C-alpha cells in the first residue's frame, strides 16, 4: 500500500499515527501470505479490511497485536515497535468469534473483568473502581442485566457484545475487531454496526475491523477500496476528512461512552435480546 | 528462535547419548556374567539359592549362571531373550517350581528346539504346605505368581537339604564322569546345612515368643519346621495395596502377643513395615527371604549360609 501513503502523510499533528506498517511480509511454509505491506492508521481513522478467505486478514490483525511475528518488516503501535510495546491497555482486541466451550464456567461479569488483568496488574487486587468500569462497559453494550449469566448461555450477538465490553473496559484508544459479526443474524449485525458507528462518531477511538459484510463497510467507509495488497482490500474513513482536530462532543471515557450509549438506547437494544 | 532451536537440538542429542550409554553400560553388566564357558559344565539357575547350591556342589567343574540378577525381586522378574539364549546353550537348567517362577512354562517352551539342555525342578521331595495364610484370604491375583502351595521352601534349612540333594543328583545326571567330585562337595555342604539346622532347632526352641510378623509371607516352611507362627502383613504377593483393616489387625496382633520386632525383607520397600512398627510402637528388623542378593551383599561375600545365620540371630533377638 506504499504508493498511496503520500496522501495520508499530510495530516495535522493531532492525527498521530496509531498503527504503522513498513514493508511487512509474512509467509507460512514458504508461501507468502502478505508481501511488502505498508500503511498507516491515524488517530480516529476507521479502517475496514475485506478479503477472500486466506487473504491474510486475521494474520494481519494477529501481527499487529503481536501474536504473530512478521517474516520481515516493522510494525509500530503508537509509534513504538510492537516487540517493545508495553501499553497494551490502550488496545482493545476482539478476536474472531471465540470457540470457547459453551460449558466454560464463567459469567459475563467475570469475562468482562478479565479485560483488566493484563500486564502491570499482577498482584493488584480488584478495586471498587474496577467493578464500576465493568458495570459501565456492560451498560454501554446494553448487556448489564446479563451480567451473572454463564457466557455459554448467551446468543452469538450477546457474546460478541460481551467481548466488545471486555475490550472497552480499559477505555482503549484503538479497537481491533476480527469479524465481529460472523455467524450472527442480519438484524443483530445491523444493530451491532450501528453501535460501532456511533462509537466511532462520538468517541475518541480508532478502529481496525475485519469484516465480510461488504454492505456495511461500503455504506460507512465508501464504495471503493482505498487500497489493496494482494487480496486484501482496505476501506478507509480518515478522521481528518470528517473531523477537525479539536472536537467538542468527542469523549474519551468509559463513563462518557456509557452515558452516550444509554441515551441512544434504541440503537443498543435493537434485535439481539432474547 | 535460532538459538533456542540449537539448544533444543543439543539437549535432544545429549539425552539420546546418555540413554545409549546407560543401556550399553547395563547391557555389558549382565553380558559377561551370562556368557557360556565351554571348558566347564554350564548350569543356569532361576534364582539365588539354587545358584548357591549349584556353585557349591559343582565347584570348579561347573560354571553357574543365575537368571535373576543381583538386587531384583524374583516376583517382578521377566525373562529376556538373552536369558533364553543362555539357558538353551547350557547343559543344565535348574528351577525351583511350585509356582515361584511364574514365567517358567513359557520359558521352557521358548528354549531353542535344537537345545540339549536338561531342565529339572528342584523342589521335588519337599513336603509342601498350603500357600494361603490363616489370617489373610488369598488375593485373586496371587495365583499367577504362585500356585496354591507356598513356594518359599528354601528359607528352612530342612528343605534346603532336600534342594541340595536334588541339585547334586541333577549334576551327576548330566556329568556322570565327575560324580565323585559332586558327591564330595555335596557332603561338605550337607554338613554345613545340618549344622545350620541344628542351630536353628536348638536356639529357636529356647525363645519365649513364637510369633513372627513379616512383610511377605515367605517363612511358612521355617515356621513349620521350627515351631513358630508366621503372621504376614500381606498375602503371599509382595505387590498388593495395603488396606486399613489389615494394618489394624496386625497392629492388634503385635500388641496382644507382645511382638517386639516387625520383620521386613530387603528386596521390597520397607515403608509398610515401618508404618506398622510406628503404629504399634515396635521396631523393625530385616528377615531376608533369600530370594536374591543385593549388589552390596554380593560384594561383601555374603552367601546363603551367612544370611541364614543372620536371619537366625535376628529371629532369636526378636523372640527373646
Amino acid at each position: 500500500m506504499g504508493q498511496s501513503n503520500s496522501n495520508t502523510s499530510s495530516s495535522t499533528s493531532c492525527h498521530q499515527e496509531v498503527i504503522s506498517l513498513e514493508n511487512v511480509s509474512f509467509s507460512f511454509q514458504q508461501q507468502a501470505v502478505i508481501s511488502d505491506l505498508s500503511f498507516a492508521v491515524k488517530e480516529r481513522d476507521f479502517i475496514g479490511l475485506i478479503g477472500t478467505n486466506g487473504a491474510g486478514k486475521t494474520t494481519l490483525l494477529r501481527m499487529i497485536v503481536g501474536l504473530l511475528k512478521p517474516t520481515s518488516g516493522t510494525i509500530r503501535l503508537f509509534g513504538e515497535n510492537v516487540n517493545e510495546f508495553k501499553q497494551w491497555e490502550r488496545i482493545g482486541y476482539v478476536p474472531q468469534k471465540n470457540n470457547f466451550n459453551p460449558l466454560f464456567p464463567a459469567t459475563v461479569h467475570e469475562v468482562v473483568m478479565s479485560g483488566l488483568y493484563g500486564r502491570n496488574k499482577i498482584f493488584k487486587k480488584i478495586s471498587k473502581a474496577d467493578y464500576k468500569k465493568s458495570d459501565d462497559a456492560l451498560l454501554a453494550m446494553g448487556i448489564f442485566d446479563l451480567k451473572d449469566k454463564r457466557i455459554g448461555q448467551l446468543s452469538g450477538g450477546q457474546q460478541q457484545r460481551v467481548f466488545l465490553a471486555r475490550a472497552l473496559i480499559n477505555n482503549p484508544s484503538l479497537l481491533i475487531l476480527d469479524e465481529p459479526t460472523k455467524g450472527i443474524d442480519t438484524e443483530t449485525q445491523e444493530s451491532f454496526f450501528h453501535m460501532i458507528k456511533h462509537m466511532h462518531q462520538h468517541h475518541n477511538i480508532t478502529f481496525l475491523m475485519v469484516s465480510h459484510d461488504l454492505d456495511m463497510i461500503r455504506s460507512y467507509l465508501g464504495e471503493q477500496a482505498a487500497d489493496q495488497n494482494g487480496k486484501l482490500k482496505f476501506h478507509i474513513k480518515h478522521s481528518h476528512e470528517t473531523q477537525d482536530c479539536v472536537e467538542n462532543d468527542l469523549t474519551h471515557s468509559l463513563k462518557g461512552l456509557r452515558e452516550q450509549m444509554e441515551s441512544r438506547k434504541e440503537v443498543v437494544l435493537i434485535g439481539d435480546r432474547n | 528462535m535460532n538459538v533456542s532451536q540449537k539448544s533444543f537440538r543439543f539437549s535432544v542429542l545429549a539425552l539420546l547419548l546418555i540413554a545409549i550409554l546407560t543401556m550399553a553400560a547395563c547391557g555389558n553388566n549382565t553380558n559377561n556374567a551370562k556368557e557360556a564357558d565351554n571348558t566347564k559344565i554350564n548350569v543356569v539357575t532361576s534364582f539365588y539359592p539354587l545358584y548357591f547350591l549349584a556353585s557349591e556342589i559343582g565347584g570348579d567343574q561347573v560354571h553357574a549362571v543365575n537368571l535373576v540378577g543381583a538386587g531384583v525381586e524374583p516376583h517382578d522378574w521377566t525373562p529376556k531373550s538373552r536369558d533364553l539364549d543362555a539357558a538353551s546353550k547350557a547343559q543344565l537348567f535348574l528351577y525351583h517350581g511350585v509356582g515361584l517362577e511364574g514365567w517358567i512354562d513359557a520359558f521352557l517352551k521358548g528354549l531353542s528346539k535344537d537345545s540339549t539342555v536338561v531342565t529339572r525342578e528342584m523342589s521335588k521331595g519337599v513336603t509342601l504346605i498350603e500357600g494361603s495364610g490363616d489370617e489373610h484370604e488369598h488375593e485373586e491375583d496371587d495365583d499367577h505368581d504362585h500356585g496354591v502351595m507356598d513356594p518359599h521352601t528354601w528359607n528352612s534349612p530342612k528343605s534346603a537339604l532336600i534342594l541340595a540333594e536334588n541339585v547334586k543328583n541333577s549334576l551327576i545326571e548330566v556329568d556322570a564322569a565327575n560324580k565323585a567330585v559332586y558327591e564330595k562337595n555335596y557332603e561338605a555342604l550337607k554338613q554345613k546345612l545340618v549344622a545350620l539346622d541344628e542351630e536353628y532347632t536348638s536356639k529357636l526352641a529356647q525363645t519365649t515368643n513364637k510369633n513372627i510378623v513379616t512383610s511377605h509371607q515367605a517363612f511358612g516352611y521355617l515356621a513349620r519346621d521350627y515351631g513358630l507362627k508366621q503372621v504376614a502383613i500381606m498375602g503371599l504377593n509382595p505387590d498388593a495395596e495395603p488396606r486399613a483393616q489389615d494394618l489394624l489387625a496386625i497392629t492388634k496382633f503385635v500388641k496382644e502377643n507382645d511382638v517386639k520386632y516387625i520383620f521386613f525383607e530387603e528386596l521390597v520397600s520397607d515403608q509398610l513395615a515401618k508404618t506398622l512398627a510406628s503404629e504399634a510402637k515396635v521396631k523393625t528388623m530385616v528377615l531376608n527371604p533369600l530370594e536374591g542378593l543385593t549388589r552390596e551383599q554380593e560384594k561383601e561375600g555374603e552367601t546363603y549360609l551367612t544370611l541364614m545365620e543372620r536371619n537366625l540371630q535376628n529371629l532369636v533377638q526378636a523372640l527373646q
Partner: protein
Amino acid sequence: MEIVTSEFFQRALIGGLLIGVTAPLMGLFLVLRRLSMIGDTLSHVSIAGVALGFLIGVYPVAMGLVFAIAASFAIEKLRKAYKTYAELSIAIIMSGGVALASLLFSMGKNINVSSYLFGSIFTLNSTDLYVIGAVTVVVLIAIRTQVKELFLLTFDEDAAAVSGLPVKFYNVMISVLTALVISVSIKIVGALLVSALLTIPAACSLIVARSFKQSVITVVIIGELAVVIGLLIAGIWNLAPGGTIVLLLIAVLLVLLAFRRGVRTGN
C-alpha cells in the same frame, strides 16, 4: 471406628486432605484448557523418575518431580511441532514415560512398584507429609494471588497475550505446579489414578458451577469430600483406598449428571 484413632489413618487423612485441595484446583485449569490428558502423561513419566530415584538413591518423589517438569516442557515443544495434532505429543511422551519406567524398574532394586502405580496412602511417612504440605502451600499461594491472570489465560489465551499478560510465564507456571502436584499425589492415589483426582472434580464443576468462582469452590469441595469419605469407606470396609476414592468421584459425577438431566426434563 477405631480405625480413625490410628496414626497411619490420621496421616493418610492429612495427606489426602492436602492433595484433595491442590489436585482438583490444578486439574480445573488443565480441563478448562482442554489438556486433561496431560495429568495422565505427567504421572506416567513421574513414575519413571521415581524408579530412577530408587536406582540412584535420591528421594523418589523429588526425582519424579524433575521428570514431570522435564516432560511438561517436552510436551510444549512437541505441541509446537505438531500444532494441529497437539494430542500426539501427549501420547508420545506418555508411552516414552511408561517405557522408561519399565526399563528402570527392571534394572531396579527395592522398589515396591505397585505402591507407586496404585498408591499407598496408608504408608505415608512424615517426610511425605511435609513435602505434600509444602507443595500445597506453594500451589495455594500461586492460585490465590494469580487466579485472575490464570482465568484470563484459561479462558482466552490470545486475549491474554494482547492484554500484555506474559503468557509463556503463566504456561510454565501451570506446568510446574501441575508437575509438583502430580509427583506428590502419586503416592496417595497412584500414578494410574492421579488423573482422576485432577479431572473428575473439574468435570463435576462444569455441570454445577455457574461462574468461575463457583467452579473453583466446587472442585475443592468435591475433592475433599471424596478423599475423606473414600478414606473412611476404605478404612471401615477394608478396601483399597486409592481405588475407593476414585470410584467415589465417578459416583459423584454420575449423580450430578443424572440430577442435571432430571432438572432439564422437569423444566
